């Protein structure tokens, strides 16, 4: 097709897509997210396609292969008409589901049943895992085939971009994001609008915007779910940000080992360009913006912003000290504004619905919703989206279904290997950047790990450090050597070879690592251990004094 030349052409084209779709015709959304894909949902999708083909084209029944629906625990997930949710669907279930759906019936045996009461829930809005969520970002995943830009346009996609380009000045866009108090979802919670403003005002004509899609820590899988399932949402946010900042060149930095994500990003870029939503003279506005995709070399630290920028330049991904911020001097020393996937994905809705609406969700200091990867000793693992301020108890018990096997919760851990653990007694704490940071379990990117009463807290700290020891670049001493020695001490304790003085050794090591490292990876590497020594010190002392490998 020809590139769209104006906002009006975009709206006409969107109306055409919607007119061609009959909302009364059933559609089956088969999840192809990472977890369902691992459970061979591709065969489920093929079975549905074969079954629908038998009905003939006149039946108007459709199959849509989508990104992650969220309820990974019960995959493969299939969502039918009227948001009827089928769980743990096998290829052989397809004929029955298709036949019964055409007759307007529900396949009772495949809908949600409460594990204790057996009570059934048919529609997404009634399934406990979903009903306590506010799915502003991930909710569209069931309605979109990520390989088809038309699906994104059908749910209102790129309307925010048109609004930004034709009804707002770059300054007004920036102001809206600042007013919304959107805080970075990548770890630090730094105000995005403030960062944008720094890059915008930094000297130099050439400026860059970057999507950090380098999600790499154990227990974090929300960015991949969002970006793989709805790549245009992130891209739209990026283009709007580029317009606000005055950038004409963007970068997406992601993992080389996520083939499905890469395919979806590259397809999305090509389709957006084909439609005139990217490239030269976007929607006839005169604004030019291009995006390149860059890949990591398989090391966690390349997600650290300055290392990431070194990597895009073609250098080894070693962090450099940021006494001058990357938003002033980043890639090739040009102003470079980096935000993570989820942060960019929040931008379109802030522009469409306004800062006042956005600010009505969340707490005083943390606005909007937050994606959380829920895993560990919890009944329902998956991708969860809740308003900021939601008590952790609600996430773990109402959404997560509590602890399996009737066990008690011991701790919840936020932020993966650079986060912290808090005891179950603090589970009423709200999901809030500042509140959780005060407790020593900063949200980080949003990986929430639930640990039951059998968890060995020395081994948890050891596990996270082992990961980071291999993922540090090894450049600066307190990171490389501090972690090496901390890991040795912790390993000895888990083997029953703890010595007196170990606690003091651990405290000195984590104190200096936290204060003296070059980059955020090193400075936060000891955070899990610090939180353990704050809340589970007794367990450490007992293990060292007991000298036994067995607790």
């Amino acid at each position, binding site marked *: 097709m020809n590139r769209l030349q104006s906002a009006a052409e975009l709206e006409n084209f969107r109306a055409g897509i919607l007119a061609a779709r009959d909302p009364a015709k059933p559609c089956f959304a088969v999840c192809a997210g990472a977890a369902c894909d691992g459970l061979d949902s591709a065969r489920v999708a093929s079975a549905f396609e074969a079954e629908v083909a038998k009905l003939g084209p006149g039946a108007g029944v459709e199959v849509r292969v989508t990104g992650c629906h969220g309820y990974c625990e019960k995959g493969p997930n299939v969502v039918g008409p009227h948001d009827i949710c089928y769980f743990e669907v096998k290829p052989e279930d397809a004929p029955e589901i298709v036949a019964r759906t055409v007759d307007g019936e529900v396949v009772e045996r495949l809908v949600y049943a409460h594990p204790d009461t057996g009570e059934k829930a048919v529609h997404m809005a009634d399934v406990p895992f979903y009903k306590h969520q506010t799915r502003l970002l991930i909710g569209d995943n069931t309605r979109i085939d990520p390989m088809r830009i038309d699906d994104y346009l059908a749910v209102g996609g790129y309307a925010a971009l048109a609004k930004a380009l034709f009804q707002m000045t770059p300054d007004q866009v920036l102001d809206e994001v600042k007013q919304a108090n959107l805080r970075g979802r990548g770890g630090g919670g730094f105000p995005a609008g403030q960062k944008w403003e720094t890059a915008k005002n930094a000297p130099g004509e050439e400026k860059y915007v970057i999507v950090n899609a380098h999600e790499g820590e154990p227990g974090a899988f929300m960015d991949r779910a969002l970006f793989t399932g709805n790549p245009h949402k992130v891209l739209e946010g990026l283009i709007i940000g580029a317009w606000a900042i005055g950038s004409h060149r963007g970068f997406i930095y992601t993992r080389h080992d996520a083939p499905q994500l890469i395919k979806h990003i590259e397809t999305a870029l090509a389709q957006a360009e084909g439609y005139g939503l990217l490239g030269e003279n976007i929607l006839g506005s005169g604004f030019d913006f291009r995006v390149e995709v860059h890949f990591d070399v398989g*090391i966690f630290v390349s997600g650290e912003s300055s290392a990431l920028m070194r990597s895009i330049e073609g250098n080894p991904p070693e962090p*450099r*000290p940021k*006494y*001058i911020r990357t938003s002033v001097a980043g890639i090739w020393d040009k102003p470079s504004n980096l935000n993570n996937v989820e942060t960019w994905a929040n931008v379109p809705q802030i522009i469409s619905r306004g800062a006042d609406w956005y600010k009505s969700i969340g707490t005083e200091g943390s606005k909007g919703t937050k994606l959380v990867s829920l895993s560990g000793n919890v009944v329902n693992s998956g991708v969860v989206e809740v308003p900021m301020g939601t008590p952790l108890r609600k996430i773990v018990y109402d959404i997560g279904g509590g602890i399996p096997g009737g066990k008690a919760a011991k701790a919840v851990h936020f932020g993966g290997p650079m986060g912290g653990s808090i005891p179950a007694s603090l589970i009423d704490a709200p999901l809030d950047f500042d509140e959780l940071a005060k407790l020593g379990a900063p949200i980080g990117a949003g990986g929430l790990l639930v640990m039951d009463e059998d968890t060995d807290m020395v081994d948890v700290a050891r596990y996270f450090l082992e990961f*980071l*020891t*291999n*993922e*540090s*670049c*090894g*450049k*600066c*001493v*307190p990171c*490389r*050597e*501090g*972690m*090496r*020695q901390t*890991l*040795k001490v912790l390993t000895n304790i888990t083997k029953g070879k703890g010595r007196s003085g170990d606690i003091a*050794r651990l405290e*000195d*090591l984590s*104190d*200096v690592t936290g*204060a*003296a*490292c*070059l980059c955020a990876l090193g400075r936060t590497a000891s955070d899990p251990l610090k939180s353990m020594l704050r809340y589970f010190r007794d367990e450490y002392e007992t293990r060292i004094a007991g000298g036994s490998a067995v607790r």
Partner: protein
Amino acid sequence: MSEVVMQIDGKEVKAGDGTTVLQAARSAGIRIPTLCHHDKLEPFGACRMCMVEVEVRGRKNYVVSCLYPVAKDLLVRTRSERVDKIRRVILEELLAHAPNSPELVALAAEYGADRDRFDKDPSFCILCGLCVRYCAEVKGKNAVDFIERGARREISFIPEIAAKECWECQECFALCPTSYAQAAYFLTEALAFPGRRKKASAPSA
């Protein structure tokens, strides 16, 4: 170049705009210990021994002086309980690798570092990168480089380049605080291109 006035350890110090706190301190005769710094090389910021306390508008921060730019009215403290602790623990971590390095032993005495505090791992190299960076930045040869990452990081001579370049140079040996660069070179020579020494020292006909 314009000048800024700042305070280092209570002493008023003038420094050229665009220079670092380390340069300013040294020009004023104030000593800050370093292990990876060399005047001929770009600042590296890896050993973290030169960390100092800076205060800007009442906010205290710990920064590496080899990279931190001077600024008007900056308050710098090169010694404090916390700065000393950072240096002491860093030394203890490095002494686990090179317990007898004269440079480390001298600093350990100054900062009260216990060389037996942590488990020994005598790799001898402390990865200051002086050899790597000198070879790249001054000689432009890249005959030695870092390999691997994290706790597995080490230096390695690249045999194809080292066989051609190193015998005539050997300048990095003297920079090495632990003599490991020299050992690593001769190990590479013995493994990858033996016989070089014999030929070089053979009497001419």
